[in-house]
């Protein structure tokens, strides 16, 4: 319980920071339920969640503008390759998409023994909108459970796997 308190405080700070930055999404973080031998420091958990939430901003910006380079800060490996290919396909089809996240309910579930990956699950609500030549073509509210694997890089945690599992 004493270990839990700093994490909760850190989470509240994170939410406050997000609000100050103008983010619309509400973020709820459930205390970690770790499957693994390695302890997760509060500072690490806070950084992981913060960087993950920021990755949704990059994701939305990249897909809305069909600019894969906007993924560079927050994505790496398979997630980056797949999203880059999706953006290429969008551009070819003459469409753009926005993924506007409304709420996140996040829990860290795995911290690998050597400390080189963190896995979290996120029950996320977002609105997806498809447009072509400035005109909205289709829109849909979505509630999905995402499984996310993040790995540490030089200065931040980056998303290596971003996978929706459906409602």
């Amino acid at each position: 319980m004493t270990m839990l308190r700093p994490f909760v405080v850190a989470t509240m700070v994170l939410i406050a920071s997000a609000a100050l930055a103008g983010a619309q999404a509400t973020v709820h973080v459930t205390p970690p339920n770790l499957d693994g031998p390695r302890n997760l420091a509060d500072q690490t958990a806070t950084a992981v969640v913060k960087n993950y939430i920021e990755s949704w901003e990059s994701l939305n910006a990249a897909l809305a503008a069909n600019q894969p380079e906007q993924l560079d800060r927050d994505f790496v490996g398979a997630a980056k390759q797949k999203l880059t290919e999706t953006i290429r396909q969008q551009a070819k089809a003459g469409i753009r998409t926005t993924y506007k996240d409304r709420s996140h309910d996040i829990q860290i579930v795995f911290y690998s023994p050597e400390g080189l990956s963190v896995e979290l699950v996120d029950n996320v609500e977002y609105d997806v909108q498809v447009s072509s030549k400035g005109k909205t073509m289709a829109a849909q509210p979505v509630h999905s459970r995402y499984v996310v694997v993040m790995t540490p890089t030089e200065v931040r945690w980056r998303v290596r796997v971003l996978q929706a599992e459906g409602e």
Partner: protein
Amino acid sequence: MRTGYAALLGGVMLAAAPMLGAQALTAPKTVEAGSSFSIESRGSGQATLYIVGLGGVVTRDVQLGSPISIAEGTVFNAGHYIAYVSTSPNEVATFDVVPAKVADISFLARPSRLPVGLRNGITGAVYVFDAYQNLVTTPTPVSFNISTPNAAPENRTAQAKNGAAWIALDSSPKEGAAHFVARAGGVSAVRVIQQVPGDPCGIKMSAKPNGKRITLQTDPVRDCSGNAVPDGTIVTFTENYHGGQSTVDVPLKRGVAQVEMPAIPGANITVASGVVLGNEIRWGK
């Protein structure tokens, strides 16, 4: 006249009925990654089908009113997708692509080199993927096997949750290259871990007179599991005499360390390697 209006109104309602609440497309709720599937379409005429998700975008010219076949390998990234046709973009069908069977594993074993006999010294972490690099999130058994020459192999099984599994194992009491294998769904990955002798368990030296010098030599130096400590490990001989001190660092050669030091009557000679202190010899007067 009234009858005419009623008939006209009824006709309009009947004509509109198929439009109300009828989706232009009906997609299966879930589709296995990379498999073929079919989307039912209503209406008539030509249109463009759009399938849009974070995992990819597919467009296709289609004939409405007949099933739209999506070929194997077209939609393969797991995730949530929406589908609509250009003639009815507001009528969105949704479906989820789920991972296929395990076809690949990402296996990280640490460390690559460690001393023998270390409790929970070896860890392995596995992520299980299908052929399209989708994380297989359904519970999947992952078996771990570690084998070292001249030592009994160790087998363990862990259940991958959310696509991840891990294990911690003791290093073998015997030195040598251990083959650490992770296996899931008929796919395996091997990592080699060097298990090296630990610190010396004890050091015993003997001394022989050699003119005005003493020849000091250790017995073969071994760790606490009986493995020979590697050549090159530094052994330090220290001779204390009448307020003076001589120290010589010698690497192990063929398992032993040997050195000559001045034969000073009354000198006290010690031997050590790392934090391990060996026996002590007092040289006679």
